[in-house]
């Protein structure tokens, strides 16, 4: 299928420069350690809702946040290539449009995946219980969700053309409330009723809950099912919107 092979092709092109910049790799490895070192000591001192220890609760939420923020803004990277002719060059080839977008998204997600694995492994000695299979499923859902969000971000970048300010404004005014309403950093059970109800309308909430369940070792539960559904729907919608935007664009 050309979609798959073009996804790999696009990924291969984009990952090249990343692999060559050592500072990016060093920063990528250090970043999760920073989170753990600077935030977790505070966290473990806090009385958090839910059972199990704070890491089990906090790590999946933080991963959702990292994926959301990285992918929501990654359309920015496309802007440069939209202004020059290099994206257009690929559009004049038979390469699959969704493949081009998904390959780019995976390039943004691959470092996150590695960071997440480092985070999990390093957190284990500090009390994070490892449930390898559920956790890997959790990471896979995050990747699927991230592909969707990244595709929306590419669509936004194309729609806002060279207007970087517009892109920034829209992407942040969407992602920030999503994140705050998703109970990523603090448990929504502690929220006032109206806020709690609002959070039930936020798709991200279901993903966050599913990730937390998976990090507690659950797999076959409705919570995980809803989260998976959200991830897949976001991916399908994102790829569809991204592809249509590319096809209709008058760059």
């Amino acid at each position, binding site marked *: 299928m050309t979609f798959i092979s073009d996804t790999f092709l696009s990924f*291969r092109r984009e990952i090249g420069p990343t692999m060559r910049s050592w500072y990016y790799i060093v920063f990528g490895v250090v970043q999760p350690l920073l989170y753990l070192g600077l935030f977790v000591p505070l966290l473990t001192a806090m009385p958090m809702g839910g059972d199990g220890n704070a890491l089990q609760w906090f790590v999946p939420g933080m991963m959702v946040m990292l994926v959301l923020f990285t992918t929501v803004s990654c359309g920015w990277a496309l802007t*440069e290539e939209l202004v*020059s*002719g290099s994206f257009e060059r690929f559009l004049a080839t038979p*390469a699959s449009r969704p493949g081009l977008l998904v390959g780019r998204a995976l390039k943004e997600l691959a470092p996150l995946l590695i960071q997440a694995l480092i985070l999990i492994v390093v957190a284990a000695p500090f009390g994070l219980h490892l449930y390898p299979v559920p956790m890997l499923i959790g990471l896979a859902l995050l990747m699927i969700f991230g592909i969707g969000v990244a595709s929306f971000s590419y669509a936004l970048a194309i729609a806002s053309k060279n207007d970087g300010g517009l892109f920034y404004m829209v992407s942040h005014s969407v992602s920030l409330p999503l994140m705050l309403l998703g109970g990523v950093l603090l448990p929504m059970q502690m929220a006032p009723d109206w806020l709690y109800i609002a959070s039930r309308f936020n798709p991200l909430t279901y993903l966050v809950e599913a990730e937390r369940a998976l990090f507690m070792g659950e797999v076959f539960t409705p919570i995980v099912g809803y989260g998976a559904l959200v991830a897949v729907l976001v991916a399908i919608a994102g790829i569809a919107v991204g592809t249509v935007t590319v096809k209709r664009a008058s760059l």
Partner: protein
Amino acid sequence: MIHGRDITRTFKTKTGTVEAVRGLNLDVGEGELVAFLGPNGAGKSTSVRMLTTLLPMTSGAASVGGHDVTRAPEKVRRMIGYVGQKTGSGPYHRVRDELIIQGRAQRMSESESRKRANELLGMLELEDLADRDCNSLSGGQKRRLDVALGLMHTPKILFLDEPSTGLDPHSRANLWDHVMRIRRETGMTIFLTTHYLDEADTMAERVMVMDHGKMIADDTPERLKAELAGDTIRLAMVSEGETLIAAEVAANLPNARDIAPNGRSFSVTVRDGAAVMPHFLRALHERGVDIATASVRQPTLDDVFLNLTGRSLRENAIAA
């Protein structure tokens, strides 16, 4: 190979709508090399981008390589190579990698792509740059890479949007040597836009002149020049009053126009000046006119454009 019917394209901008292309009709046969000539903003790039499926048309229809551009864009993309006006290489990517990826995107195998990349690096004198990031290349080097990217899969139909802009004379000559050789070997159809009048004149079998979104001329460079410009005969007389006699004589020459007596110098535009000149000089001699110097100037495509629009492409280029 390329057919367009009543193609239009308008853009909405903050200050109103721009009619970039207004009713373009064109037909290019298999193996032809056609040059699109016109001043800045004439609509050349917009036309090329519509024909290469990159930009939807506002109205009209086009087919490229036998496939409808709007209805079967995937099929069109399989047949074409496209070198856009803007830089096609990614700034942080390496020269050789970009070529190989381009080959893969054009459905070549990995080994074919590598081989072809090396060939083109050699041809376009880019070997020494193969492992550099593209943003470290000079403008002309980037442009050569753009052309190499377009040639990777040796397309049946090649669109070149100002391929030689920014190239030094050596690189330009080298580029055309290779493009012409590939064309001879493969029978590639080439559609190019250019501001270099001499390039259009010497390379293209047909020149299409575009202005304000419309095609205003379409013919071989020779016929365009003969019909729309003509040769200019210039004379310098020994004494002043004789230019008036020359004007009288010139009026009887076949197809004479733009008769311009001016002090002691005189000019007239005719078809095939080299053949007319001897007759003209003999006739003047018979009227007793003494001539100091005589010359025939062949027209350029700029004269063609000047006659078509009343403006010169050269002036435009300077003003822009």
